[in-house]
């Protein structure tokens, strides 16, 4: 299990290769990556992500451990940035590896659902000439968690 919280740009494909190369038993690898996108008007200048140092890694590790308890995974990778990001940069990624695709897919979705609403990150979008707006949590993200509690 590899959990990283970083203020630096990272290369999703390079990390996916490293993850994949380290596997020996898994026939199925799933990755998710989140990328900064511009708004419809094309005015996004940057995204800023605030986090809670200390709690962040603890929360991510606990979510990843829960995934390992629920599914048969050979390995899990979570990388999440904080600080300032530009359009096109990767915000975060998860990768999961298992013998079977169902485990790898479900674990990746579980990680994303929990990471969205239970890891202490807050996004702010700063557009040209404004001071920035905090991104509102979406009801649909909170609702997504119910899938894992039945």
């Amino acid at each position, binding site marked *: 299990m590899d959990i990283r919280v970083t203020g630096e740009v990272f290369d999703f494909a390079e990390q996916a290769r490293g993850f994949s190369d380290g596997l020996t038993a898994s026939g199925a690898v799933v990755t998710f990556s989140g990328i900064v996108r511009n708004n419809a008007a094309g005015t996004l200048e940057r995204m800023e992500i605030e986090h809670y140092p200390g709690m962040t890694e603890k929360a991510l590790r606990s979510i990843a451990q829960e995934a390992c308890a629920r599914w048969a995974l050979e390995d899990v990778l979570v990388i999440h940035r904080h600080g300032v990001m530009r359009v096109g940069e990767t915000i975060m990624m998860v990768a999961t590896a298992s013998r079977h695709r169902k485990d790898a897919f479900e674990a990746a979705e579980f990680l994303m659902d929990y990471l969205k609403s239970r890891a202490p*990150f807050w996004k702010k979008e700063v557009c040209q000439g404004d001071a920035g707006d905090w991104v509102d949590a979406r009801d649909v993200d909170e609702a997504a968690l119910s899938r894992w509690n039945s």
Partner: protein
Amino acid sequence: MDVLYFAWVRERIGKPRERVETTAATVMELVAELKAREPRYEAAFADISALRVAVDQELADFDAPLDGVREVAFFPPMTGG
């Protein structure tokens, strides 16, 4: 104990953290004490349903006890991923 604020809670209160001497038994009692201090605290804690709380770096409820707790953090719903 240390009280931390994140995102717009931090911006409204005007600082990221502070040391608070309190005898509050629960998070809710601590919130009441903070609200009584100044209008900016009153504003930040006006709608408690818009806030989340972590006690010693674990998500908690507002009725969580504070006995022995070293760190409480207040913030809006998280938007990671």
